[in-house]
């Protein structure tokens, strides 16, 4: 840790870490700008066992957790992969399969070297010799990353290559990536074994989100205490979050864990209309009702408030005048279409949920539809190879709770207050 750590706070708020260069220059960081800001890559120590153990230990003390949605402790994955039999490989996940999220794409675009640093360090820490950076097919980031890799050609001890992954909601799930890189089929597999034990071509595979790796690159330079200097004891550090829907300044922001959900939305200018709800965690996430001032923005607090998972950091604000029932119907229809069609409960269950929600939304569904939907919500989750069906259940269950009044009106056959209005959520192929 030879480089001086950047300021933790500026004017009382946590200073941006991953986005620092962007705020300073307004331009993507090339290698020189990156090196000037963050200093050299501390990779030499990782040639020795003690150095590798120290990095893993530092990541553990920092409390870094995955930023791809699972929220799994990163150090535990490093340890599992390093301990598994065979030469490991690192897979950096930059696919960002959920259409509500943009943060990984933004990070790859403006700070490509920070991500590549993290890949090289994580690979060296588990004694991998090669790594694959997975990007969405045809994305703008592909050229940016190719340029960045060319800039550092021959200077890294790890061979990093880029693979483009087809756009599909479930393709970026970690077992799907491992299968894609082995056999070209980007569909999830049944686990265990998890990729950490047996992944790409049977090798122990460290699958980490690109933002997670960027944080790791800073932890390796500045240490665990610096990393913990922002955020809360249980959720240290900062996180990137995509904020969209009815806010004044939609975009990608870097926020400190532990801020109130309201302050996080204020980063994006706050709600542009009285908010009816916010969708937390992407299209397979959950609706939360206001007030947002008392909810702390940490994975645990958001879960306690009704959100799911470790947090795909995407927030979408729905104005009160919009219809949560209709919005949710569109989302679950999309999620049903995105099923890999491998597992029965997903292949048949998600279209059934979508039918019920659509019936409710258009006023065709009465109490019997609602009762059937509730029963299906009990039966579908936890029965797929991946969590895709669970995400669809989460958004529908939370919609029935948060938009209970709307649901009641729809069930009673009252006309939908927002019929014909433009949809708010970014659902591909279903308009908007």
């Amino acid at each position, binding site marked *: 840790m030879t480089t001086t750590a950047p300021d933790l706070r500026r004017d009382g708020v946590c200073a941006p870490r991953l986005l620092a260069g962007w705020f300073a220059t307004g331009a993507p960081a090339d290698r020189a700008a990156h090196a000037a800001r963050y200093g050299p890559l501390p990779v030499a120590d990782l040639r020795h066992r003690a150095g590798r153990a120290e990095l893993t230990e530092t990541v553990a003390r920092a409390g870094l957790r995955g930023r791809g949605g699972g929220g799994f402790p990163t150090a535990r994955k490093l340890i599992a992969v390093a301990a598994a039999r065979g030469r490991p490989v690192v897979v950096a996940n930059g696919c960002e399969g959920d259409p509500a999220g943009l943060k990984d794409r933004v990070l790859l675009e403006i700070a490509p070297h920070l991500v590549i640093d993290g890949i090289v360090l994580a690979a060296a820490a588990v004694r991998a010799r090669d790594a694959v950076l997975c990007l969405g097919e045809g994305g703008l980031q592909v050229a940016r990353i190719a340029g960045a890799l060319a800039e550092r050609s021959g200077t890294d001890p790890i061979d990093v290559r880029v693979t483009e992954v087809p756009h599909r909601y479930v393709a970026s799930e970690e077992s799907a990536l491992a299968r894609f890189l082995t056999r070209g089929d980007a569909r*999830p*597999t*049944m686990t265990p074994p998890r990729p950490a034990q047996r992944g790409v071509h049977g090798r122990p595979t460290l699958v980490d989100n690109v933002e997670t790796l960027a944080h790791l690159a800073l932890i390796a330079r500045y240490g665990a205490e610096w990393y913990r200097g922002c955020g809360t004891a249980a959720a240290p550090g900062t996180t990137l979050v995509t904020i969209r829907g009815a806010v004044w300044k939609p975009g990608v922001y870097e926020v400190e864990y532990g801020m109130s959900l309201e302050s996080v939305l204020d980063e994006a200018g706050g709600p542009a209309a009285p908010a009816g709800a916010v969708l937390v965690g992407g299209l397979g996430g959950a609706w939360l009702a206001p007030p947002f001032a008392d909810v702390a923005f940490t994975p645990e607090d958001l879960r306690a408030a009704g959100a799911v998972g470790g947090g795909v950091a995407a927030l979408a604000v729905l104005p009160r005048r919009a219809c949560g029932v209709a919005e949710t119907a569109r989302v679950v229809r999309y999620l049903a279409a995105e099923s890999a069609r*491998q*597992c*029965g*409960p*997903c292949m*048949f*269950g998600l279209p*059934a949920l979508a039918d019920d929600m659509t019936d409710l939304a258009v006023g065709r569904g009465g109490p019997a539809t609602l009762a059937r939907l509730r029963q*299906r919500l009990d*039966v579908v989750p936890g*029965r*797929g*190879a991946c969590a895709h069906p669970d995400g669809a259940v989460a958004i529908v269950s939370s919609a029935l709770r948060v938009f209970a009044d709307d649901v009641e009106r729809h069930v009673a056959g009252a006309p939908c207050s927002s019929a014909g209005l433009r949809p708010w959520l970014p659902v591909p192929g279903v308009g908007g």
Partner: protein
Amino acid sequence: MTRSVTLVVDPTACRAHGLCAEMLPDVIRLDEWGYPILGPEPVAAGRERDVRAAVRACPTLALRLRRTDPSC
């Protein structure tokens, strides 16, 4: 003490033949699309024989036994 085992289904392999629910009606029920719903409980003592027969009978080999012991 004998090692306990749990019935699991590989959802990617299951094709809803429904044999398992026929052979083990007290353990497995089917959802409205014909796919098995399994509880998380270990196989009850004395039922191992029946359960193993159902596992062998699954036409797609989707029904499996997994050691409950998490260290495996």
